[in-house]
């Protein structure tokens, strides 16, 4: 992954708000990140931290209303997806950006054959004839490791197991050779052995096809195994971002540190008990004017209540949004 190359995806200050009966929910607050060609970016953060909403906002997959994308820029090459007209966005979805969702049991349409669902984007975006699309669909199913591919095209989703369905979802997402694959907790709904198989598959496909991947997960173990770079989200913001080795070796943000402590270690001394992060996730009713993590932070001081920290570089490709960390750096210097 050449460091200097232009990013495939460059997101700046993305802001998404839900208008609900109980008021506004500020789900994504000025999120910025970029994705290099061929890179695997892991996204972690607890439930409700805005991981899914961020990714769905990128390509207009959230129903508006209730969602309202208030600002930001989402550059895919030289198109700004946020301001692009609907047809342009549709042309990007499924073609240049593929999506895999969490629950393979419900993400496929139960009344259409698997083949027709794979062929849909091929016919739409690539203008393939039925025969061409069929051939490509067979190829795709073989690629994602489904045996007897040609026969299975005529099967319905319920005739596949969960793991097989997730393979089909991956085949659909990869059908048009996208530059970016966004996988939103693609293995959470599967058992551990199947999870491992899917992970292997994705690693393998990445080697073969070379697309960039955004991989959302709760599982830091998975991240350690496959990601190049990691982005940690909290309260609808990116609080820390670093190359994977750097993040595990030198986590900076108090939340990241706490998160890493919650991972059980198989090796080394047996921990007395599994750590949990004390406190409740923040309630996102307004745009944050203070640090979102302050209520649960052990390093809180006056500035944390007065000002929402911005991300600052603390190392090569490593940045963090925390007043205390920057303070600590300064103190050390």
């Amino acid at each position, binding site marked *: 992954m050449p460091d200097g190359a232009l990013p495939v995806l460059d997101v700046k200050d993305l802001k998404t708000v839900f208008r609900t009966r109980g008021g506004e929910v500020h789900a994504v607050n000025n999120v910025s990140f970029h994705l290099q060609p061929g890179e695997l970016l892991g996204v972690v953060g607890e439930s409700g931290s805005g991981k899914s909403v961020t990714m769905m906002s990128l390509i207009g997959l959230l129903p508006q209303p209730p969602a309202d994308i208030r600002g930001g820029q989402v550059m895919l090459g030289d198109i700004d997806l946020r301001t692009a007209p609907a047809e342009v966005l*549709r042309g*990007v979805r*499924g073609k240049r950006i*593929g999506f895999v969702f969490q629950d393979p049991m419900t993400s496929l349409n139960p*009344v*259409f054959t698997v083949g027709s669902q794979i062929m849909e984007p091929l016919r*739409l*975006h690539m203008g393939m004839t039925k025969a061409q699309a069929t051939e490509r669909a067979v190829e795709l199913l073989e690629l994602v490791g489904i045996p007897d591919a040609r026969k299975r095209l005529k099967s319905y989703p319920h005739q596949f197991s969960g793991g097989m369905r997730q393979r089909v979802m991956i085949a659909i997402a990869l059908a048009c050779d996208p530059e970016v694959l966004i996988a939103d907790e693609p293995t959470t709904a599967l058992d551990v052995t199947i999870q491992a198989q899917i992970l292997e598959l994705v690693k393998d496909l990445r080697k073969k096809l070379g697309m960039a991947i955004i991989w959302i997960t709760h599982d830091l173990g998975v991240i350690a195994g496959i990601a190049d770079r990691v982005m940690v989200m909290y309260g609808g913001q990116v609080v820390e971002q670093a190359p994977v080795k750097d993040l595990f070796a030198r986590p900076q943000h108090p939340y990241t540190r706490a998160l890493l402590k919650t991972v059980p270690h198989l090796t080394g001394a047996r921990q007395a008990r599994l750590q949990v992060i004390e406190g409740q996730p923040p309630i996102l009713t307004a745009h944050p004017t203070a640090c979102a993590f302050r209520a649960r932070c052990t390093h809180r001081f006056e500035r944390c209540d007065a000002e929402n920290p911005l991300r600052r570089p603390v190392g090569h490709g490593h940045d963090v949004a925390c007043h205390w960390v920057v303070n600590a750096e300064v103190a050390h210097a």
Partner: protein
Amino acid sequence: MITFILRRLLLAIPTLLFISLMIFLIVDLAPGSPASQIPLTVPPEVKAKILEQMGVNDPMPVRYALWLRQFFIVEPAYWIDSLFGTTLSEGQQRIVSWQFRGPVMDVILERIPQTLMVVGSAYLVGVLIALPIGIYSAYRQYSAFDQVGSFVAMLGFSVPTFFTGVLISYIFAIKLGWFPTVYDTTLKVTDWESFVKQLRQMAMPVMVLALANAATISRFMRSSMLENMTQDYVRTARAKGLSERTVVLKHVLRNSLISVVTVIAIGIPSIFGGAIVTENIFKVNGIGSALINAINVSDLPMVQTIVFIFAILVVLFNLIADVLYGLLDPRIRYD
């Protein structure tokens, strides 16, 4: 699938036998006697003889057994005879109406076309207008169209047909004089002119029943669409870059139709139920008015037979609905 249908048909036999017994018991409890239909001038001993001949005084089980035999053996045999020129039913007594002194089945078969013509086309019209309205209301939920649709649908199923029927009849037939007040059963469509006449006399009853049917079905279509619209596979379809039109009219609609088609099929026998009220208001000489008349004059064989035919239709269309369900939903397998 075939074995499923056969099994269901076999199971339907005890069900229908039980229903027929129930109908017989209930109808038998009803007050009134066919004797009251015989003019008072007829001497009592003649009257008694007539009733004797009609079998009115036979005990209930005897009459039930006779009716069963007539319905399941004699009537089919009679039809086979008239189709193939055989003589299976020779010398056998068919079910006889106490009021007409003629076979019940002849009356029913004469009335059914009238009912199908009016009530059947009302159902068809109702379905045809309900589906697009339901689909569009869901597609544009809370739009002006949806709000108006909800309001009209609310009227449609909260105001009973005997009220809308009388109201429409009053406005369009009596005040405006656009349509005839009485349905002419003897009208035969032979040319353009009589065709228009037929359309005009059908207009009001069809309007009333279609409104009622469309109300329920469009609401059902709408809620089925909305339910499917929030499913995960819809998000997948959007993530593929499909247009909203394709997402809704292909992915969502195809799933929504599974339950809607089932409801439509199950609703078909209710055509005949709806006929009872509407036919009487608009004086359509169909199966519904035949039933009401038979009840009025205590023509028990007629009542029992018509009600039992309704029961058969209900059972039959439930089976059809199940079969359609299986055809539309690949997840259902009948074996």
